[in-house]
């Protein structure tokens, strides 16, 4: 197989620029990057069919010698339509987030404030941890309390409510 250097370089440029834009925080930019990377990927698949040739249409079943490999084309046709669908979906996302925030540019955003979000996450994690910890401590307390620490067979310092009482069964 041989390659056309022009197409390879073009593909590399589209990948590079696409990734560059995609790494931004604006949803519109991410979409632009997505489109560029999408086209670049189509080009990559396209490259695999080799040099240019005649279309894979075979009148009367006669295959011309320079017919292009149809397989990459089939894959790409699917990819083009799916790309379109995803683009529309991201556009709807952009519109929706803008509409929700209704504050112009701020809605067009992946996240509002990095530091704030981090703090909230850390807080949530702490809360969860604290709640799990208190559950475990409760287990220990129950087990420890029941262990005989006081006088031999004497009455408990504070009568423990029983399982029954705590649930008020009947």
């Amino acid at each position: 197989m041989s390659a056309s250097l022009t197409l390879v370089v073009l593909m590399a440029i589209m990948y590079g620029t696409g990734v560059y834009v995609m790494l931004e925080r604006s949803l519109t930019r991410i979409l632009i990057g997505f489109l560029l990377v999408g086209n670049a990927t189509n080009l990559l698949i396209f490259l695999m069919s080799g040099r240019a040739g005649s279309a894979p249409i075979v009148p009367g079943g006669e295959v011309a010698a320079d017919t292009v490999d149809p397989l990459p084309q089939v894959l790409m046709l699917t990819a083009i339509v799916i790309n379109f669908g995803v683009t529309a979906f991201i556009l709807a996302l952009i519109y929706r987030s803008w509409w929700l925030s209704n504050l112009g540019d701020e809605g067009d955003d992946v996240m509002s404030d990095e530091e704030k979000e981090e703090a909230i996450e850390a807080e949530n994690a702490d809360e969860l941890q604290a709640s799990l910890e208190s559950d475990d401590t409760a287990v220990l307390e129950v087990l420890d309390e029941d262990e005989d620490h006081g006088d031999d067979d004497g009455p408990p310092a504070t009568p423990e409510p029983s399982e029954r009482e705590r649930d008020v069964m009947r």
Partner: protein
Amino acid sequence: MILALLTFAGLVALTPLLTRILSTRVFYLLAVLPAGVFVYTLTQTATVLGGGAVTESVPWIPQLGIAFAFRVDTLAWLLALIVTGVGALVLVYCARYFSPSEPQLGRFATVLLAFAGVMYGLVTADDIYVMFMFWEITSVLSYLLIGHYTGRKESRGAALQALLVTTFGGLAMLVGIVLLTAEAGTTSIASLVADPPAGSGVVTTAVMLILAGALSKSALVPFHFWLPAAMAAPTPVSAYLHAAAMVKAGIYLVARFAPGYADTPGWIPVLVSLGVLTMLLGAWRSLRQNDLKLLLAYGTVSQLGFLTVVVGFGTRDTALAGATLLLAHALFKATLFLVVGIVDHDEGTRDLRELSGLGRRRPALAAIAIVAAASMAGVPPLLGFVAKEAVLTSLLEAADAWGWAALIGIALGSILTVAYSARFLWGAFATKPLPDEVEHHSAHHAPDPLILIAPAFLALATLALGILSPLISPFLESYADTIPTEPGSHGVYHLALWHGLEPALGISAAIIAAGLGLFALRKPFARFQRSLPHVFDAARDYIRIVRSVDALAARVTLFAQKGGLPQYIGTILLVVVLCLGAATAFNRTWPESIVLWDYPAQLFVAAAMAVAAVLAARATHRLAAVLLVGATGFGMVVLFAYHGAPDLALTQALVETVTLVVFMLVLRRLPTKIAQHNKPVRRGRRVVIGVLVGVTMGLVGIVALGAREAGTLTDELARLSYELGHGENIVNVMLVDIRAWDTMNELSVLIVVATGVASLIFVTGRNASIPRLRESRARRQGIARTRIVDDPHTADEAPAERQHSWLLGGRTLAPENRSLILEVLVRLIFHPAIVVSIFLLFAGHNMPGGGFAGGVLAGLALIARYLAGGRYELGETLPIGPGVLLGTGMLLATGTAVGSLFLGADVLTSAYFSAEVPVLGYISFGTSTIFDVGVYLVVIGVVLDIIRALGGEVDRQQAEAGDAAPEGSGDEHTDARDTGAVPVATTAPVNAETPATTSGGRR
């Protein structure tokens, strides 16, 4: 067996409903099932007794050799009887234990019944992976049952502890199982035991890992702490799961593997030392408990250690003793828990310091408890005594170092057992002086005789089986006989109450005497216990370990997941660069030749595209960026067209046009400039990543071309599509026939996408209504021809017109937004466009075109109508919802797929009807054409959905916002307003750019 499990599954599914109808009486009904399986298992007795086994098997994952294989031999038979018998009795007990007002009764009943079924599956499964599956399900169900009182902290904590500890062991076990089955080449437990793989490091490791799972499940040191904590569960659960059934799973596994693996290095030392340690520790702590239930729980820990030592020891006689002890323990410990439940139920307390005189008031209950506790202590003539005799004799026979160690440990543990058994009876039933303050606890509830059924039954079994032990001996011996007796041993042991004056009898007597003595001296002994420090506190270690894991996880998350989406994508891309880059760096395949360009025009097109891509990346205006990206897309069209890909060129051109229009529709509402609030940051880093990715992908492209060794399939595909697919356009035939599965999946994706878009924009549902002119309905009724329209926003402004307008919906637009030329053009071109789209659809089989291209073209025609006439025009043009189109399209596609099945062919097989038709000539019509029509309809549906959402609905929302803030109006792309302003209303759905793209779409 499989039928029994399926019945369990069915009844479990019905239980919530049944509970709603029957309330607590549902437990009687549920008990019938385990009781039935108990009887069924009894019918297998004859086979099992002869040393045979009942087997069933249904393939599950044949590639891995995994099957739903079940096998009932003696050990499984014994366990199945215990599990179903105790299960049925505990369910009967539940009917009286719970009151109808118990919260979450349905869930409890469901989970408990499911547990019984799963436990039955666990002990009868022969495939080790199926066994493991049941094993893990019991852990989950146990979690749900321990955590039954969800409102209590200690319940939740205990449930989680049990789950974490047992699943940790389960994971270790899974690794062990995988190692062992890979080494042995079979997943059948019976074959694994009968024919163990030759001893090696791998086998030893595997066995140790499996033991870790078994020991964690059976609450042995150092995992023992979860079992006392699990007493937070309702008492029936403690009796069933944590005495008779689930904790026995570990013992069962040890017993199962002992015949084949007891000589594995480390097996005896690990089991004997941990078992003895657990027995002593559990009994020691049991003596310190004041809560009767916890006393029993630590007693269970102790007994599980005892059982592990005996069943793991691996001689024929210890196996017999172990099986007997297993049965005895299940019977007496379940009884004792049920008794504690009744005491708690009636007296309102389980604290032995608050109970007094119960033995006098409840003689029947006391009698039951005495039988069970005496069996636990090993008093004749009960089953516990028979078992203990067998244990002592068999260990004396073994007469090696570990045998002596086990014997001494068990004797010491048994002394403590006798002491805590006596303390239990004394604490629950004796008459003791009570301080006045706790008087109120007495006689909470009237005794309920029915609740005694289950414990009485179990106590009776303990007594009867003890006396009749010579009769049950042959049954249990058929398991023990799977272990060959060593030469020179004292003959084979049989269960009996009286073996003559043997050493074991003397030891038993000494143990009981010493235990009673210890009980008599309980006050000084308790003082002695208190004077010792806590030496072994696994529960606190557990908490420490779990905390540090939590903290580590939180730190890792904070470290790895900051920076938002850009960092995630960046990380992913860097990994791509590293992996692909490394792979290409070591590559030695390069293309045969590299040409600069295929044809000179390629260079110019590529250069233009590259410039557009770079500019798109730098553009700050939304519109500019979108147009530049569009330029690269149209550049692709040219490349495709020159390269021999007319289908691609056609589809790409149409799709690119639709994309641009849709972009415009959304952009008209967004601020002109991108990212006002999110200024681009870390530019240098992004440039580096971008360049790296670009270079890597370029290299990958070249290397991949060079690496391609096989020639193309073009000739073969051409033959297939012409001869079998009846089409000359290979690409289209592949889409609708050769690779039709792919296309069908793609259609599903498109439908999901369309639904996603619609639900993001139409918040309340896209099918609510299709905007129509009121007039069009009136016209159908033949009343009026020109009247007002529905739209409240434009009705006042738009003058009522006569019928001779070019587009019906046009009049709903404000006059300044209307373009007569556009309306005329659209009116003239719409129908030809639809005809062309249908032509593309049908011609696609032999020429460039097909369902995709045709569908997008039809979609474009609809878009043109919308652009010229507004959203009402869209409703007038196509008065059906996109859902209908999507559904019909998918139905056609799947219909052809499924239809071929009915005709006995494979999915998606196509059939053809050929005929000579006047005008059109020779026509070959195939089912694949119907498939293509499906594609066509789905694509139109998708475009329609998108245009209705991002076009029509956005117009409506804009008009609403315009009502709220009418100060801003006008074309937003020429409007240099500040960012951050309230959304500006424009009443025009068409702006300066869109007509241009429309005309582009009419090609």
